[in-house]
């Protein structure tokens, strides 16, 4: 599996897009994480207006066999949650880097340790 070069990554297997002109970035989980989870059946995403803090829990993804916490890759305000994923959580499996994105966040602070695609690929194996 390949991790897109234009994204940055966390060791919790989330990806973060570059910010747009409003300082908003898109967040999802990686294909590695989606495969490890198995079929995702329920996504609890942060709500629009929520303030999330880098490294803290901001939602959960539920698969057939387990439930996993979703961690905020950055600090900021949630400006959009992906309703398509709420309606059809299997999008996280079928298109983790595209239609299966989870939420958009207006970044106020980001940790220094976000990984490049190559560093994440080395990390995730």
């Amino acid at each position, binding site marked *: 599996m390949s991790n897109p070069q234009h994204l940055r990554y966390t060791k*919790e297997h989330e990806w973060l897009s570059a910010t747009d002109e409003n300082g908003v970035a898109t967040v999802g*989980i990686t294909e590695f994480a989606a495969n490890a989870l*198995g079929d995702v059946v329920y996504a609890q995403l942060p709500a629009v207006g929520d303030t999330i803090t880098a490294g803290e829990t901001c939602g959960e993804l539920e698969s057939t*066999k*387990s439930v*996993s916490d*979703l961690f905020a890759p950055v600090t900021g305000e949630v400006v959009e949650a992906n309703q398509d994923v709420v309606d059809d959580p299997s999008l996280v499996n079928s298109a983790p880097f595209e239609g299966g994105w989870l939420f958009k966040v207006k970044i106020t602070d980001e940790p220094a340790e976000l990984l490049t695609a190559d560093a994440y690929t080395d990390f995730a194996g």
Partner: protein
Amino acid sequence: MSAAETSQPSETAAPRRTALDALHRALGATMTDFAGWDMPLRYGSERDEHVAVRTRAGLFDLSHMGEITLTGPQAGQALDHALVGNLSALKPGRARYTMICDERGGILDDLIVYRLADETYMVVANASNAQVVLDALTERAAGFETEVRDDRENYALLAVQGPASPAILKSVTDADLDGLKYYAGLPGTVAGVPALIARTGYTGEDGFELFVAPADAEKLWQALTEAGADAGLVPCGLSCRDTLRLEAGMPLYGHELTTATTPFDAGLGRVVKFDKPGDFVGRAALEAAAERAADAPPRKLVGLVATGRRVPRAGYPVVDAASGAVIGEVTSGAPSPTLGKPIAIAYVDAAHAAPGTAGVAVDIRGSHEPYEVVALPFYKRER
């Protein structure tokens, strides 16, 4: 993202591998440690595998199960003494679901026992309990004319499950499958390989379990894969096996059944045969448990169906939605591919256990999610 909770057991010792291990890896299986074995969890989507078994056919490697053979003139009597069932009454060629209990009536394991011949029985134990069962049978059979043999190394176990499984198996065997009833087993040849062919399974579907020499396992797997290709047979892992058995309302050791549970507590008192000849281990305690269960069942095993989408997991409290009082506990839970909703098996106080009881919820990490109480099983195949 990190796993906050998982129902997969994990052990620290180096896991054992089945005879089909290389094949699973070549097929790209996600492997998991299960009861000390490295087993396929899923090959692709566990939901697709589940649906294949319900509508077509699935092929499983169950070589982690523990086989124990009893031979000799008193093998049947030894099993009557050691287990709760009446195994000496079992006809050769038939199989029986039964349990082994301790002196207090607690369940040590649930078992399938095959009577292969007049003086030969094979006991199949859960992987996690195989050693416990072997030790108990060895000890309990000591006074009888029988030999207890650990056959775990001598068998690989493959299962073909699903409505297409009889046609698939027929194409690779001359054995009389039409004459083979549910819960029966006979020796035969499948794809040129000597096998014990049993019409048993753990999926709620028609299907077969094939006990073969480990050296023959790969040949048999390949032959079944080819024979089933047109019928849509797919390799299946333990993940879908769990959702299949859950829909079929079948108990799983360590979840619905434990040493703290008697067969009567689990609603499976029918497997205890008090009227069999001779005494058996746990009789007195089980008689008391039977009386308790008849008078005032403290908790009953029920099915729960979600109206929402959040999935109950083993250990989550069942609560009264109005008061928030804990009225039970989930023992198994998963999203049901067949029902399209989360389902669970739970022990619930008798007052809330009737199908249709209103106001029952599951505490899912602090949120009380509404659930409907239903009778088990959730799914029953048409016959």
